[in-house]
């Protein structure tokens, strides 16, 4: 491996990592702003103009809080919980293609950290690992509320991962590849976006993404009203901060995955008709990609301040009795349509 390649990847990883953290940080502010606006309030606006320093203030507060590990807690697992949560959240963005190639001099730089040919499987695997962080944290706290939250998180993410996987299978039948880079490359322009081919699959995927991120209306693992704080009841200081942070990073990454799989990733309308150079198209593409991601993050928040939380049995009913049959029906439908298309066109 040549040095330039390693440096290039290292720089890219650093940029992606920093961007992820900054976006997660500002998602906390955006969440509170959106909450405020939807409730006819202003949201936080005291720290800096329009409250843009609020995330820094929150972070500073987290660092200066006393760190408490309960006497009955399993110490090493208690620490491992938030660690796993944040690590899995951070590494899941590795396979996302942020843009096409940048050409600097005679070097062609891929704007993707790792182009592995089972990209989607990687994302699924890492997201599935993420629930361990919650489970370990909840169990190690030695607190009934935490344990309840952890159990809910585990059962919820298992139930919804199935429907999510099934909805992805239908997508893969259309795209014929598992590599996210190829999937995005297929959707160039506007009419080739997968959302036009897989609208039902997209709805199922979004619903499951909400459940996987523990977002309202599926935030049963941490519902304040019944379980105090759910799995992070006993956590304080930066450990709690890491849990919160991993939630927002997950939201960012799942927004990125959704826009890459269904909304064309870095592709934007009329990209091939503008007559711009490759570098410019790449740069605009990256911006378009982030615009889509932000739109999805806003959508996440929009839903959060619209819908109330599901009851536990409703959650399970929705997952097992509605989403999974729907996803299977979607696969069958996709198969039939693909077959008809291949035979008669």
């Amino acid at each position, binding site marked *: 491996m040549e040095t330039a390649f390693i440096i290039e990847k290292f720089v890219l990883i650093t940029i992606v990592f920093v961007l992820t953290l900054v976006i997660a940080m500002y998602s906390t502010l955006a969440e509170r702003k959106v909450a405020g*606006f939807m*409730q*006819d*309030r*202003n949201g936080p606006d005291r720290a800096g103009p329009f409250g843009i320093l609020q995330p820094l203030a929150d972070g500073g507060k987290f660092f200066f809080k006393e760190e408490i590990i309960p006497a009955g807690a399993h110490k090493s697992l208690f620490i491992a919980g938030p660690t796993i949560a944040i690590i899995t959240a951070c590494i899941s963005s590795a396979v996302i293609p942020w843009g096409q190639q940048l050409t600097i001099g005679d070097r062609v730089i891929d704007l993707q950290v790792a182009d592995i040919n089972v990209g989607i499987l990687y994302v699924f695997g890492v997201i599935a690992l993420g629930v361990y962080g919650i489970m370990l944290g909840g169990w190690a706290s030695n607190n009934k509320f935490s344990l309840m939250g952890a159990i809910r998180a585990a059962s919820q993410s298992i139930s919804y991962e199935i429907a999510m996987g099934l909805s992805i299978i239908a997508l893969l039948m259309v795209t014929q590849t598992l590599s996210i880079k190829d999937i995005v490359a297929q959707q160039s322009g506007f009419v080739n976006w997968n959302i036009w081919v897989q609208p039902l699959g997209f709805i199922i995927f979004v619903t499951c993404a909400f459940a996987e991120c523990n977002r309202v209306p599926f935030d049963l693992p941490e519902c304040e009203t019944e379980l105090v704080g759910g799995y992070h009841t006993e956590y304080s200081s930066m450990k709690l901060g890491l849990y919160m942070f991993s939630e927002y990073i997950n939201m960012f990454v799942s927004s990125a995955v959704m826009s890459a799989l269904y909304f064309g990733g870095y592709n934007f309308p009329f990209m091939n008709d503008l007559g711009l150079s490759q570098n410019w198209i790449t740069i605009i593409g990256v911006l378009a990609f982030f615009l889509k991601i932000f739109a999805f993050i806003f959508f996440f928040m*929009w*839903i959060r*301040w*619209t*819908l109330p939380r599901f009851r536990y049995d409703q959650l399970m009913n929705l997952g097992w009795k509605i989403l999974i049959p729907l996803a299977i029906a979607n696969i069958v439908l996709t198969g039939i349509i693909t077959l008809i298309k291949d035979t008669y066109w």
Partner: protein
Amino acid sequence: MESLSNRKKVLEQKPMNFWERMYLPAIIKGMRITIRHFFKKKATVSYPEVERPYSKNYRGMHSLKRDEEGRERCTACGLCALSCPAEAISMISAERKKGEEHLYREEKYAAVYEINMLRCIFCGLCEEACPKEAIYLDGPHVPADYLRKDFIYGKNKLVEERFDVNLLEMANLKQEIN
């Protein structure tokens, strides 16, 4: 039971039809409501920078008035303290000395005049009782403080600013500008 008021309505709970059971239309309906609120004008008044105007007949902090020559009007008759339902007012009276005529309007004046703002219920009976038009509840609301003793307002906080020619000129100027 028979309805006496004729306003009884029997609610019929029909089972949901397919459209309603799909849940998505209801979500979209809800999202339309929230996004409408997102762009609505906010009800918040950012307090320290923007202050909501008091209503005209708002009864706020008391002020002890002066007359046209800048003398205190209060004669320490004690009617305000007597009328006060919350026992918030107390005072010590003193006799006006020679040479103090420019300070006090009447021959008797309040040497100490204290209102306990924690007791006061801002009913306005003191200003109704006052025969000398010396006390009015025309100030802003009473600010917060840390200690109970700091809520007992003495004359230093209650008596109106001394009539000042420069201030009057400035006020006139302001009016002209406006």
